[in-house]
């Protein structure tokens, strides 16, 4: 291809940021600023780049992050420079950069304060938080305030996230608080992030002005009200182990599952997982053993393992708590999954809004690599496996399995049409097993306790323990672990059910509402299905009668409109029409709303039937359930 570039040049800072990721340019052709004096004699004989550079297209997203982290936005010069280095057409890279909400292609202040305005935070006063923050941070404050979809901090709502661009800190992500330099001058501020939750306007503004000295986050165990209790399986190490220490993880039973996996062999592992009846916990509930077996048996090589840690469903934060409280368990589980499906490379696709998980997982991978638990010869068993973290940049759709592949590969995070399915043609067009964090972590107890004992937990069709993300109007929000089959009432009993409960949103924005008198719904895949609802990703968001329901429905509609990738018509336009209709009937009931409700039903049905992927197919679920089960506009 004959690429065309404009005259825009990168600043030194932008160039440094890209070169730090890609290494110095191999020849002057890669930079090609039209300055012939820079070219050496060798450059005039041949050019490197071309196909070799193009094969690194998957570094486009990390490259955009590098510039955005350093400068705060992505200029024409920076984007063109990155494109020259990777031989990516600038139009395509521009399409990618404008796809993600955490990137900006227009100048903006170096510090961005993301204030979560999603369902759980909205119910806890994010509107007041936004107003308070904007009142204090006017123009010229050097901080850009952006309203954000769910930050995954629902148990500590309302939440805010500060991202300040600056020169890179040593190592992956941010340095631990104690080593943060306080002497960095105004001129070269270090890249820093801070999470503020629960946030007050004062605390958010303070963190935005000095993220490096912001109050440290409470430990992940505070998100687990059951932490330390006996009988826990998936959460047993949360609050017990030091998430930064590999030794501590091993002294609490870590890596015994991987040893067992090597004893069983790949086929044996798949048999155990199949016999255990494990199904995906990300929302789709697909049998994991079937997926692994199908991937393992593909003749095409290489195989890939992808861990979907793009937890962006409003109300969902279990994967964050697992990754922050017990990061090595995910690394171990990914190693086992990779071994089972015959992959030597695993990608951990982590949403961009989780700085602490990024830091802890980065550390865990480094430590595991240093100790021979990742690398060319895992545990001396002759099996090579390594994990690479890929950071998302603010796009709910990238949690869709095929959109995630496109995102890693450096394309717009648009879903692909299926078939072909990922087990056949997934990441880089190769057989790929993609699993959610919670699903993978379940593999550890399956191997340590055996398939039979594991399958004895829960019900016949929904086996094992399940994590629930309880938030909203409850006394003790957080992650709860219960065996499948416990009822909604039992779960809310643990979390402190409010006396004035109006409804529960099950399964997140893509799930559905149930009434306060439906507390005996069993929390299993088959039980929720029989009750005409869904377990989805395990969201249990309690809404009391003080929360205006139409406002919540509008927020859900706004979320889908905002997060639609725009590829197919039913979703791109349908989500807009859905939001418009809800605006029209926001304050209306009965006959005055009937026409628009009929319209919503017709559009919703077409979105569910004709959209390419799950986002459009589920965008009408919650609103429909609020109308039918709660009588939202009667």
């Amino acid at each position, binding site marked *: 291809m004959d690429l065309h570039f*404009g005259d825009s040049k990168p600043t030194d800072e932008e160039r440094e940021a890209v070169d730090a990721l890609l290494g110095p340019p191999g020849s002057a052709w890669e930079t090609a600023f039209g300055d012939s004096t820079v070219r050496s004699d060798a450059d005039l004989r041949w050019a490197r780049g071309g196909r070799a550079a193009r094969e690194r297209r998957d570094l486009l997203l990390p490259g955009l992050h590098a510039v955005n982290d350093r400068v705060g936005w992505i200029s024409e010069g920076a984007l063109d420079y990155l494109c020259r280095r990777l031989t990516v057409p600038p139009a395509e890279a*521009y399409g990618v950069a404008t796809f993600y909400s955490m990137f900006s*292609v227009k100048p903006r202040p170096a510090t961005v304060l993301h204030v979560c305005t999603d369902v759980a935070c909205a119910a806890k006063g994010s509107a007041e938080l936004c107003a308070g923050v904007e009142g204090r941070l006017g123009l010229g404050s050097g901080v850009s305030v952006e309203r954000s979809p769910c930050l995954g901090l629902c148990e500590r709502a309302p939440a805010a996230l500060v991202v300040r661009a600056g020169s890179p800190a040593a190592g992956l992500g941010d340095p631990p608080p104690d080593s943060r330099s306080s002497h960095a001058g105004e001129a070269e501020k270090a890249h820093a992030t801070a999470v503020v939750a629960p946030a007050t306007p004062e605390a958010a503004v303070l963190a935005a002005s000095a993220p490096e000295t912001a109050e440290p986050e409470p430990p992940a165990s505070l998100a687990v009200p059951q932490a330390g209790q006996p009988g826990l399986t998936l959460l047993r190490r949360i609050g017990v182990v030091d998430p930064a220490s590999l030794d501590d993880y091993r002294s609490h039973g870590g890596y015994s599952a991987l040893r067992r996996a090597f004893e069983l062999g790949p086929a044996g592992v798949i048999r155990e997982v199949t016999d255990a009846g494990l199904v995906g916990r990300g929302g789709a509930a697909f049998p994991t053993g079937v997926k692994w077996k199908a991937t393992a048996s593909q003749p095409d090589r290489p195989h890939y393992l992808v861990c979907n840690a793009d937890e962006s469903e409003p109300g969902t934060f279990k994967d964050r708590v697992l990754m922050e409280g017990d990061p090595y368990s995910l690394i171990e589980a990914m190693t086992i999954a990779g071994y089972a499906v015959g992959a030597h490379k695993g990608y951990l696709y982590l949403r961009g809004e989780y700085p602490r998980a990024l830091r802890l997982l980065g550390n865990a991978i480094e430590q595991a690599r240093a100790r021979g638990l990742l690398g060319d010869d895992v545990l001396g068993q002759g099996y090579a496996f390594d994990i690479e973290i890929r950071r998302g940049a603010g796009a709910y759709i990238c949690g869709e399995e095929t959109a995630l592949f496109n995102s890693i590969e450096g394309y717009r995070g648009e879903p692909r049409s299926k078939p072909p399915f990922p087990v056949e043609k997934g990441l880089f067009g190769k057989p790929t097993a993609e699993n959610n964090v919670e699903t993978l972590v379940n593999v550890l107890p399956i191997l340590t306790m055996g398939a039979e004992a594991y399958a004895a937990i829960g019900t016949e069709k929904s086996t094992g323990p399940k994590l629930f993300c309880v938030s909203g109007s409850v006394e003790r929000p957080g992650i709860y672990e219960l065996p499948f089959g416990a009822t909604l009432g039992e779960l809310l009993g643990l979390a402190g059910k409010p006396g004035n409960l109006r409804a529960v949103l099950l399964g997140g924005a893509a799930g559905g509402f149930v009434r306060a008198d439906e507390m005996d719904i069993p929390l299993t895949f088959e039980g929720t299905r029989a009750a005409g609802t869904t377990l989805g990703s395990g969201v249990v968001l309690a809404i009391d009668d003080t929360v205006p329901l139409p406002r919540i429905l509008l927020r859900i509609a706004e979320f889908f409109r905002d997060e639609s*990738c725009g590829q197919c*018509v039913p979703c*791109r336009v349908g989500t807009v029409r859905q939001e418009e209709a809800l605006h029209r009937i926001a304050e209306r009931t009965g006959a005055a709303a009937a026409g628009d409700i009929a319209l919503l039903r017709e*559009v919703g049905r*077409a979105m569910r*039937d*004709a959209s390419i992927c799950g986002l459009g197919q589920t965008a009408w679920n919650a609103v429909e359930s609020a109308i039918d089960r709660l009588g939202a506009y009667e």
Partner: protein
Amino acid sequence: MTAIPLGVPRRLVEFTLDGQEARVPEGSTILDACRAAGKDIPTLCQGDTLTPKNACRVCVVEVEGARTLAPACSRKAEAGMEVRTDTERARHSRKVVLELLASSVNLSTTPRAAEWIKEYEAKPDRFGPDAARVDEEPRVDNDLYVRDYDKCILCYKCVDACGDQWQNTFAISVVGRGFDARIAVEHDAPLTDSACVYCGNCVEVCPTGALSFKSEFDMRAAGTWNEAEQTETTTVCAYCGVGCNLTLHVQDNEIVKVTSPHDNPVTHGNLCIKGRFGYQHVQNRD
């Protein structure tokens, strides 16, 4: 003489189409099968020279056992499949999709759109006068072609034609997302500052008139565009020795635009800037 491309012989797949036995070569799509059986399935984003993107969702059909509807343009026929093309469910989705499209963009120059809207009894007005529209002014920034995104349905055909499927220029891409997604060149610059090489192959594949020849755009604005009065003559391009076919569209003895036959086995409707736009010398009468 027409060249007949001879493909590798393919096995036949047997399946049921609206209750009738259907046999199509392996690899055929449901849409291919429908067309072979004389069924008229509406479609906007499907292009005869491009890999289907299945973005418009107008061609959805019901496949027995599937949770959702399937796009006929890209779903391959499989042995034993039971496909129904004209069910209430499929018709409902087509109707709503046509309503969603027609309420958000201008379909006045989209062939057959009005006919389908009538057939499916779509009522694009029912979303009310305040329904969000794309609402953009035509971008006239060069003398060869005009981009009128008010008519764009985001079918991705221009992106695919400019990219790895034909031209390999990669000058255009989809940018932004959701309802704000648009077709644009790098940095959303004017066309003249972009990588565009003015081959016009994007105009050739555009199904809605969102991309049109400047000549056609001006004549439409002046009210002088009259397709009924145009004659089409297919000839061979005289610029180089490749021998691409040109179809000259002539109105009032003036060439008003140049297209290229898609069934040409060499060019499949693609041309370069000279063949597509370099015709002024023919009608320079001074």
